[in-house]
């Protein structure tokens, strides 16, 4: 089981310091681990950043990576989860020529059925936003790409865990 590769999120709570991204990405690079996606944002604790890194690897190896990450002085705590243990979303933005809305009536149906949101419309282009599982965003991309997409960007995965994250109490124990 633990020797099979699967997608894991590595969630890292850190101090908000310049250079830490470099330090953490070097841990992956050195071991030839491809980062599928990366998101860094503030966390629920003031002054603490949260990295969400998605990797495809075995549980044995992800455990070792967690050890190497936690060893960094400015890392407070790192966790790994498989996709069943988290609630997650990614988001995609699609920039499409406005004239297609009139020339290709199916596009309107696609938008409706996909529950995508129109962010902005002007006479040259409109922008669609779709949040959800990666497969849903990719499915929309596949449907729209037939008609031509001017720009497409997909975000990194963001997630929260089903279990409680005890970072605040952990920080308190460090302080004692």
């Amino acid at each position: 089981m633990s020797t099979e590769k699967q997608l894991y999120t590595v969630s890292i709570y850190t101090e908000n310091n310049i250079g830490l991204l470099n330090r953490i990405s070097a841990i992956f690079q050195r071991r030839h681990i491809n980062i599928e996606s990366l998101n860094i944002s503030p966390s629920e604790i003031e002054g603490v950043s949260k990295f969400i890194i998605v990797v495809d690897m075995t549980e044995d190896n992800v455990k070792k990576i967690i050890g190497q990450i936690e060893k960094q002085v400015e890392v407070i705590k790192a966790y790994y989860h498989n996709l069943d243990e988290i609630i997650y979303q990614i988001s995609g933005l699609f920039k499409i020529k406005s004239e297609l809305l009139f020339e290709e009536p199916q596009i309107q149906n696609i938008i409706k059925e996909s529950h995508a949101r129109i962010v902005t419309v002007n006479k040259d282009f409109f922008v669609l936003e779709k949040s959800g599982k990666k497969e849903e965003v990719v499915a929309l991309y596949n449907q729209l790409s037939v008609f031509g997409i001017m720009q497409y960007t997909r975000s990194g995965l963001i997630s929260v865990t089903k279990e409680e994250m005890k970072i605040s109490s952990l920080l308190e124990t460090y302080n004692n």
Partner: protein
Amino acid sequence: METQTIKNEQNTAKVTERISGSEAIVRCLIAEETKIIYGYPGGAIMPVYDELFKYQDKIHHVLTRHEQGATHSAQGFARISGKVGVCIATSGPGATNLITGIADAQIDSTPMVCITGQVFSHLLGSDAFQETDIVGISTPVTKWNCQVTKASDIPTAIAKAFYIAKSGRPGPVLIDITKDAQLEEFDFSYEKCTRVRSYNPVPKTDASSLEAAAKLINEAKKPLIVWGQGVILSEAEEVFKAVIEKAGIPSAWTILGASAIPTSHPLNVGMVGMHGNYAPNKLTNECDVLIAIGMRFDDRVTGTLATYAKQAKVIHFEIDPAEIDKNVKTDVAVLGDAKASLELLLPLLKGNTHPEWRKEFADLYAIEYEKVIKDDIHPTKEGLTMGEVLHQINVQSKGNAAIVSDVGQHQMIACRYAEFNKTKSNITSGGLGTMGFGLPAAIGAKMAAPDREVVSISGDGGYQMTIQELGTIFQQKAAVKVVVLNNDFLGMVRQWQQLFFDKRYASTEMMNPNFVAIAEGYYIKAKKVTKREELADAVAEMMASKEAYFLEVCVEKEGNVFPMIPTGASVSDIRLE
């Protein structure tokens, strides 16, 4: 006494003074009780050198001949004293020249603080003269690093640097300070760092893991301890000795663990690993409980993991949680500081002697002695051996010298045969295998412990990688004894070429200079030995010298180091010839 010192500093810390960033750097070092630093000046660090000039009665700056030498000297200083080694360099090439030593300190867990000058902050990123992204470059090889661009950030950065370098599993830290931060004036005060919010240097020791470890040890029929530098770094030598004596466990060391207990201790069964001793390597695959203490199962120790100690229950005493299960799966992990853990373990252990099991070590040692050791240290055939040189050094030092080795055949011979009575006496580049480490590290060690005999042992290859540090020996009057075991080859690579590349000696033969003339060029007493009958007297003369002394010994050209576990082989397949 210690509490007293801290109190005084807290009192003085409350008073602020308006001083420059560069003066603050020096004042911070003084507050951290730094008495010696190693370095090399240059444009971006000149304000700090100006302050070092003013404070020269408090801090002795050692001008090395290359920044790499400064790092190795700081490492030698740290390894023999247990204190933080400090080195300093300018921006650009000065900073990049530190990298080898920093990487060496990282993999060998040596506490070191490096301070580098940097271009003015408004020039950062502009490819200014002698600008290099040293924080980016050093990130993978430092325990922590940071760049300071404001004078007021200097005290906290340096306080944090010392704390991080020394605490937990030690390591190198680099602080890069821009020239404007050095020149700027600010209100200075200094407080030592005792805590970093996100950093937990010593993990809590779990009582149940200790009980589980004690149970396994008490029930073991054939226990084997392999200890590493963790015993030395946590200053656990005494309790470690008490543990092995109470439980009667044969104990072997990794290269960096050497000297933690005397070589002559009856339970000391020698070195593990590629060129370690026959018995502990062989019996790693016979023991029923393997107790690893402050070591990290390096590949040079384990050989192939597929057949490493598979029959044994493995207990791992370790301060760094990332080491647990990294290479060898453990049955019981005891996290925490080695000294604290062993103190808790000791009362849980039952007295034992394991006479039959210990006899197996003695029997295998007898085989190794007959097949390898005898001819290494008491050779009868023509050609001097490295082993007999070490033997003569032992005779003269009576085991009291610190042996600083470089990297290669002579290093393996030195670590195999040097006798140690005192801890922190084996200083060598274990993890990184840095040729050129030895000579500057010996300078650092001698300056940290001027009362100790420090013998630098190098090969003709590594010696020439930092040979310029003879200038530092001369200028500092550091009474280092410098031995070069010259075989006119890059011996270890040549040995591999002989064994694994059908004797194709690609670029391993060295055409060497007149080493005696070079040493004498630096006004260092020097001698060359080519015959066995000259050796004992020459070593005696060297060891008796009150000042630095260079001794070149021309050894057999194609000597090999055995035993040997070939790369990728099992510890059971250790070869004696």
